[in-house]
């Protein structure tokens, strides 16, 4: 039985197309994906992301624990956040996540909704020898994201915090719409924006306040359909599509969140160090379609008769007007400008590897 987020009634009243996702009934779109996508690129949109999972790590060894568990360096200042992968010893990815450092001894991990159970088990399997307490607050925390170039103008009406003081990947705990909140300048759209973590019980009030404050900026609710096209247009990977337990961060070009330059021990380090040195056999790349159509997830990539890769995400890029994909390709075919063919319903369509992001004009700070 799929769960409802605290904003379920709002979505129903807004006429959203609802579908099961990550164990929740989630809004896929309210109007059209294209319109919602453009709203976030050009104005401001609001998302219900309450399906995301939140684990709190507290205690004297919280930093040491996360440094072992996660590939990225957890030693950031309180008030900062970081993106990381969490890996198996063979380098395969358990999940990708954002971690907010609340204080010296407290962190909030935000994981993919579809991975909450698996991640919770994994995290709990590694606590021996660490003086920490772990709590799974996924059901207790709601998440409303305000994204787009006008996001700050809307958010600043609802808090006393001077949002100019919160840089990209920074956060603060304060009140938002008169509710206790963690206010973070993070997102998954390539645009400026905020993610507001509140109590589940407060989510509906916060949503209503955001919709009202955003009226003058023509704020619109945005579903998971546009969330997917927005993230793909800026080349962000999606767990379960582009990365999973069979891919490593090095292959996924997430080497920047693997702390090989430090001497810290962490799960998967040995494999990643070797892979970085010897170069992986395959890489994630961005592909641009020059003509019409677009390959979708699962489409095979060819150079002549030789199969050299597979598409992991593919869509029309609404802001660009042509198809874009993320794909795994064999080493040697991953350099920018490499021309390949994608097989789409029995036909070949030409694609070219390009540097990410596809969409370069985002307002992200």
């Amino acid at each position, binding site marked *: 039985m799929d769960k409802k987020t605290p904003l379920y009634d709002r979505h129903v009243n807004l006429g959203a197309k609802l579908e099961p996702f990550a164990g929740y009934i989630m809004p896929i779109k309210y109007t*059209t*994906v*294209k319109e919602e996508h453009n709203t976030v690129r050009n104005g401001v949109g609001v998302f219900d992301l309450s399906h995301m999972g939140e684990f709190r790590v507290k205690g004297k060894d919280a930093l040491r624990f996360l440094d072992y568990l996660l590939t990225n360096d957890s030693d950031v200042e309180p008030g900062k956040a970081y993106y990381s992968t969490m890996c198996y010893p063979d380098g395969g990815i358990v999940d990708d996540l954002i971690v907010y450092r609340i204080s010296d001894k407290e962190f909030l991990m935000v994981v993919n909704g579809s991975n909450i159970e698996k991640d919770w088990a994994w995290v709990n399997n590694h606590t021996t020898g660490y003086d920490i307490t772990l709590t799974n607050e996924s059901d207790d925390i709601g998440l409303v994201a305000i994204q787009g170039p006008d996001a700050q103008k809307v958010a600043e009406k609802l808090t006393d915090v001077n949002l100019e003081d919160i840089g990209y990947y920074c956060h603060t705990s304060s009140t938002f719409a008169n509710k206790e909140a963690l206010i973070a300048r993070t997102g998954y759209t390539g645009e400026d924006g905020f993610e507001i973590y509140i109590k589940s019980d407060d989510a509906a009030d916060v949503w209503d306040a955001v919709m009202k404050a955003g009226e003058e900026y023509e704020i619109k609710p945005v579903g998971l*359909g546009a969330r997917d096209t927005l993230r793909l247009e800026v080349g962000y990977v999606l767990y379960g599509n582009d990365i999973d337990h069979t891919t490593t961060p090095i292959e996924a070009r997430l080497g920047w969140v693997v702390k090989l330059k430090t001497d810290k021990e962490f799960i998967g380090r040995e494999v990643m160090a070797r892979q970085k040195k010897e170069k992986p056999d395959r890489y994630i790349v961005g592909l641009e379609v020059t003509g*019409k*159509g*677009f390959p979708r997830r699962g489409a095979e990539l060819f150079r002549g008769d030789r199969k050299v890769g597979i598409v992991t995400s593919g869509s029309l890029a*609404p802001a660009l007007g042509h*198809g874009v994909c993320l794909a795994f390709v064999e080493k040697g075919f991953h350099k920018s400008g490499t021309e390949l063919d994608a097989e789409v*319903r029995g036909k070949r369509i030409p694609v070219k590897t390009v540097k990410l992001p596809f969409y370069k004009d985002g307002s992200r700070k």
Partner: protein
Amino acid sequence: MSNIPEDLRYTDSHEWVKDLGNGEYKMGLSFYAQDQMGEIVMVEFPGLEEFSAGDTLGSLEAVKTAEDFYAPFNGKVVRVNAALEDEPALINEDPYEKGWLVVIATDDSSGFSKLKSPTEFSEFIGE
């Protein structure tokens, strides 16, 4: 419940065809088919060329899926709906009017008369 206009005929591949009366036939995607496909984001049109019945004329890309559309009978594509280049979602919004796909010209009306009647199409899609 699908919208199946009485003055059109229908193909097995869910296109509608309208007799324009001068040897020209307009075609598009049925309400049922566009509803099944969901939001259409891109249309690929054929050139203004001769096609045989069953040939692929072009393709429709929706957010989640893609489908080709086919020549209902032998004929020449004489016009395509260029408005769909900018606004492919017109197919969803107005499948029988603004969302038309192409116009095909033929001297032989027998192909058209073999297409499904509204009643037959309604049965075909199980409504």
